[in-house]
């Protein structure tokens, strides 16, 4: 029987199950122990697994990311929580120059099985320094995997897969979704990295979207079906690196149109990579330019009204799909 769980509960189950299954797995970050996580994702873990497996760290992202990388190099499997992914930028050198490169630099002798997880993206009036979608920075880095889930069941299954992966994984959650509910299967399951999921089948226009904003895209797809007779096929790559491009191509070759919808800046965002791959591999199938619906290219505003204007909205997705469909 599937149960209805919040995202934070699904993540908590994933952590607890993997810690139970493999004693090398441990959790580290700011306030993850006694306080049980800024968003309560690590609730109960300190009590259950003890202070050797659940560590509160000082406020030093470069420090605990570095400790985690070292621990992973000697055989442990750390799960590092960034209170928000915005703070990972302080640890950027550790992630880009160390975690991502060690396997290649050691000719495969050392691996870094580490997960960096935490919330990213807009979080309602948290302004320029606490609202960024950092996934494009990490998706550009060879040696990393980048996961951006969108439903509670996927949060759980993809986190379990990330913990078992022998490579460094950047696992970006949504701060606005920790309380979001959805069905989560009973029992053991993992969702493989690098496999897309069609969230809504359709015939007229492919919409590629991921993370929290996928739900905006799905809402737009409903509006488009009801009010404009356009049936969108919504494809969720779930993993941005590696990217399941074949799933995207298969859909575009059917619909001949594509709109990419994501949170984060448009200029040089992951959407650009998706557009390029589609134009490159589906050139003769495309009946219209590939559209991108993204954040406006400005630092995230604090004011609620402005924040909403900056983020992709149902209206902007509807407009883009209609342009791509010439309807």
């Amino acid at each position: 029987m599937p149960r209805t769980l919040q995202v934070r509960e699904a993540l908590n189950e994933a952590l607890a199950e993997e810690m139970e299954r493999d004693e090398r797995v441990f959790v580290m970050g700011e306030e993850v122990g006694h306080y049980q996580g800024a968003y309560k994702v690590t609730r109960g873990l300190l009590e259950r697994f003890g202070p050797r497996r659940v560590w509160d760290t000082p406020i030093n992202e470069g420090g605990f990311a570095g400790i985690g990388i070292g621990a992973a190099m000697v055989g442990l499997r750390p799960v590092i929580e960034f209170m928000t992914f915005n703070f990972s930028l302080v640890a950027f050198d550790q992630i880009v120059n160390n975690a991502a490169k060690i396997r290649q630099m050691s000719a495969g002798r050392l691996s870094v099985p580490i997960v960096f997880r935490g919330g990213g993206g807009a979080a309602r009036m948290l302004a320029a320094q606490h609202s960024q979608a950092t996934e494009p920075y990490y998706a550009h880095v060879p040696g990393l995997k980048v996961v951006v889930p969108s439903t509670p069941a996927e949060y759980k299954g993809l986190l379990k897969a990330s913990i078992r992966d022998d490579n460094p994984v950047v696992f970006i959650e949504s701060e606005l979704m920790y309380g979001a509910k959805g069905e989560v299967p009973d029992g053991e399951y993992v969702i493989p990295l690098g496999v897309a999921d069609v969230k809504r089948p359709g015939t007229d226009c492919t919409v590629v979207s991921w993370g929290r904003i996928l739900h905006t895209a799905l809402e737009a797809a409903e509006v488009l079906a009801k009010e404009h007779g356009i049936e969108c096929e919504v494809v969720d790559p779930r993993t941005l690196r590696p990217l399941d491009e074949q799933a995207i191509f298969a859909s575009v070759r059917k619909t001949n149109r594509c709109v990419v919808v994501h949170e984060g800046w448009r200029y040089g965002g992951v959407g650009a990579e998706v557009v390029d791959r589609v134009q490159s591999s589906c050139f003769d199938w495309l009946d219209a330019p590939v559209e991108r619906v993204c954040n406006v290219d400005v630092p995230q505003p604090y004011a609620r009204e402005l924040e909403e204007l900056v983020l992709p909205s149902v209206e902007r997705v509807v407009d883009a799909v209609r342009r791509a469909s010439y309807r």
Partner: protein
Amino acid sequence: MSVMNIIQAVHSALDSELARDPDVVVFGEDVGRFGGVFRATDGLQAKYGEDRVFDTPLSEAGIVGTAIGMAAYGMRPVPEIQFADFIYPAFDQIVNEMAKMRYRSGGRIGQPVTIRTPVGGGIRGGHYHSQSPEAYFAHTPGLKVVCPSNPYDAKGLLISAIRDDDPVLFLEPKRVYRAARGEVPDEPYTLPLGKAARVAEGEHVTVLTYGATVHEALKAAEIARGEGLALDVLDLRSLVPLDEEAILESVARTGRVVIVHEAPRNCGFGAELAARIAEKALLHLECPIERVAGFDTPFPYTLEMDYLPDAKRIVAAARRAFSY
């Protein structure tokens, strides 16, 4: 006019701006007494004194943080990050503080900072002395990103960058620091940020590139010309702001595009170029846009010349585009 290489042109630009504006200061690791690991600041400390040109500890976050504070108080710092590979410890300072300060202060506090840093491979520097980090900065609103390919552009663009009231990442292609030589005026001059230069004219295939790979594209244009294939090579010179007009004008004539850069392909800056062209000029395109880029691996030490895009790969991509 003097014949200069890129290092000498950068030196000349710094010299002229230090002389012109007492608010300009130059600092970084080994830039003072030693004159810079590539000699770009040679003799400047002796000429302008230790208050204007000074050495810092090995702390990139500290260097950039100091520059941000100075700029907030109205100075025009020109910090050097010794290799772009070392810029990541300062990533939070650049992305979260420098890029956002004007916006967060309602326009009251500007950030007239120019961060100079050598980028790219080809000097047998291995993982930590070869990276091309432009995509991270081009993606971040609030930053300008400039990458010259020759001495004349290097001087004119660096002076513009220093005089600009917003933060500029000035990426210097170290592979051609000394190899690229040309005539440079001795007096100060500026080149506008955001204007591409057509460095080879042709009607068959547009080639878009910047920095060291401009020279590979020029070699490719020579080879292709021998086969009757005329490449229109644009040296973008600045990635933010981007000369979209020049790009679209060329694409409208050729209908075929090859994008070249050293950085890894996935989510590299070339993706943005391709996506823009596919959005705005799809109906002009005769074939898919080609990208020739670094491979999606960490920068390899032994295989670097296979990793870096060269004339051969550019010609092959142009042929594929032309024969589609």
